[in-house]
């Protein structure tokens, strides 16, 4: 007989055991999917791990893939902690990329430090303002933020396409004859190319370091300030928060704006670190927003864990791009991400509940009460 009982205290080791267990379980389930469709799972995983973490070149590429995921993971973690399900990280990242590219093009003649600072600020503003749309609707009209933020992802993708493919916008390169036939974004000025550093052969782009810095800031904000405390209370019990006089509406707006701003900086990093132009196809091909949700859930909303897990899942995504082909079907990365999230959810049961295996006969029979 299996009995599920609520835990009164949550032991600390579960914070490590659950994510690790989820990853192991998810790899096992992915192996099942691979076997069921006639692939050799061991071979596939070996190639995947080699392509993701096999050497300095692979690790450097993994950091490139992990950088946007760290931002969207932090974006989801910030909002989900307050039970505010912002799944618009994808669209907020696009808007951040659009705003940061505009800033870089406008300020091209200024010194590099100013241009980079302006891009980060513009990206944060673009993402934050875009996230305020569902935030405002949720705070004042109680509109379901899940659906509105998701619908705005599709709208942001269309805006991105419109700016480059179907208009003569400020972002589009219209100087050469070739660019008129094959539309693409204007190259950003050299002063907008973000620096990167090399540590023992491992490339570390500014964006990744920025993500680590943001994670530290968010950790401080959520665990050491009154703001973070109130956010947690509102997330756990909105009623208790209202009785205690916390301003729920303001917090919804602030958290949504913060969450969107983080994703927006991720968009700025895409422009400055990697793409150096506004690139609609490149931005849309990886579904950073969804992966961010997986990362946030697996990290149990801890900002530092988000960066670590973004690195792991960045490896999977990087391997997916490298290996894509006949014996590595394109959807495998999404399948694995979904299975990781399923496993994390299933294992979460172990955090909240204790599973007892007890035979009925051996349990002491309580005395009759009457």
């Amino acid at each position, binding site marked *: 007989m299996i009995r599920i*009982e*609520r835990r009164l205290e949550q032991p600390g080791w579960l914070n490590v055991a659950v994510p690790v267990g989820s990853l192991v379980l998810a790899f096992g389930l992915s192996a099942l*999917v691979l076997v069921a*469709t006639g692939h050799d799972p061991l071979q596939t995983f070996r190639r995947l791990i080699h392509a993701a973490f096999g050497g300095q070149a692979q690790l450097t590429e993994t950091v490139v893939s992990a950088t946007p995921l760290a931002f969207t993971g932090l974006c989801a973690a910030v909002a*989900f902690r307050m039970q505010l*399900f912002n*799944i618009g990280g994808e669209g907020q990242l696009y808007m951040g990329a659009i705003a940061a590219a505009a800033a870089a093009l406008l300020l091209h003649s200024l010194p590099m430090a100013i241009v980079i600072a302006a891009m980060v600020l513009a990206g944060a503003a673009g993402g934050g303002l875009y996230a305020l749309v569902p935030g405002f*609707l949720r705070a004042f*009209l*109680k*509109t*379901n933020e*899940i*659906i*509105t933020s*998701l*619908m*705005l992802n*599709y*709208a942001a993708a*269309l*805006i991105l*396409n*419109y700016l480059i493919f*179907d*208009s003569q916008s400020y972002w589009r390169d219209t100087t050469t004859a070739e660019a008129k036939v094959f539309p693409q974004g204007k190259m950003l000025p050299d002063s907008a190319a973000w620096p990167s550093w090399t540590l023992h052969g491992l490339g570390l782009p500014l964006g990744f370091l920025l993500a680590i810095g943001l994670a530290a800031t968010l950790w401080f904000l959520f665990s050491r300030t009154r703001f973070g405390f109130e956010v947690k209370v509102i997330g756990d019990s909105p009623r208790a928060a209202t009785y205690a006089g916390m301003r729920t509406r303001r917090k919804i707006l602030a958290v949504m704006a913060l969450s969107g701003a983080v994703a927006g900086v991720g968009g700025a990093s895409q422009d400055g670190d990697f793409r150096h132009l506004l690139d609609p196809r490149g931005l849309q091909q990886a*579904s950073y927003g*969804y*992966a961010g*949700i*997986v990362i946030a*859930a697996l990290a149990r909303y801890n900002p530092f864990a988000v960066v670590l897990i973004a690195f792991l899942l960045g490896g999977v995504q990087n391997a997916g791009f490298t290996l894509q082909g006949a014996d590595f*079907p*394109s*959807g*495998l*990365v*999404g*399948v694995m*991400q*979904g*299975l990781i*999230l*399923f496993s994390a*959810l*299933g294992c*979460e*049961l172990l955090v*909240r*509940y204790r599973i007892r295996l007890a035979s009925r006969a051996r349990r002491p029979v309580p005395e009759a009460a009457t």
Partner: protein
Amino acid sequence: MNNSILVVVLASAVLYGTPLLFAALGELLAERSGVLNLGVEGMMLVGAVMGFWAVQRTSSLALALVVAAIAGGAMALIHAFLVVTLRANQIVSGLALTIFAGAAGLSSYLGNDLNLADQPAKRIFHSVLPKSLRDLPVIGPILFNQSLLVYGSWVVVIVVVLYLRRTRPGLNVRAVGESPAAADAMGINVTVYRYVHTVVGGALAGIGGACFSLSITPQWVDGLTSGAGWIAIALVIFAFWRPGLVLIGAYFFGAFSALPYTLQAHGVTIAPELLQSLPYVMTVLALVLVSSAGAKRRLGAPAALGLPYVREER
């Protein structure tokens, strides 16, 4: 007259509204039992790809629909296991289902692995009624120049209405969605009811997905449904959880989904992105409208929607 733009738009509103109708009815059944399933987009895509695979293999449309329904139901079963048995957070589990099955997940994996891209469907759903009916002015193209999928969806609406209003299990499922503890005390098996309605909901979503791959755009491409699953979820809220209103809402959103294609065919030169964003923007606006009106009176949402039921903790 039957070529006038209004008639064409209305006729394609019915065509494009049908997958929304199937998926939203499925979601409505699940939500009425208290299970919120945000994985509709994923279930639709897996239904679409498996239905398409079945028609390529067997050339049988009936079999294709069955396969699509089973595929959608199987996806829903994962969600049901997680949220009913393991008491996981329904929102996150639904999102996980969308990621697992969605445009960059299992549906893409299967389409890729079964080599389904770049080929036309071997058979598709055609209009079935005689030409004399189809040529009737105005109502001909809108109501009679449609495929069996459309008429089938009307049957499903009627069945769902009668089931919820007039049958014992229908009454029970409403009880489970409103107050599982009371239902449990009445001797209703909450777990079974939630499992069954979630899985049937998934099967309907799978059929909804197959409407795309077997009728509207008869081929397979990744992300074929482009957000229809999410619009279906919004539709349930928009329709106050009532199947009759879902029918009207589905055609309303169907019209906006169809508009870009029909207007382009009529030589209207507005930026296509502007028109393509209409269904998404309208969904947001519709939700705003409903939530501002609904804040004043009760919306009709099942009271236990999204909450796990744990007998020991009631």
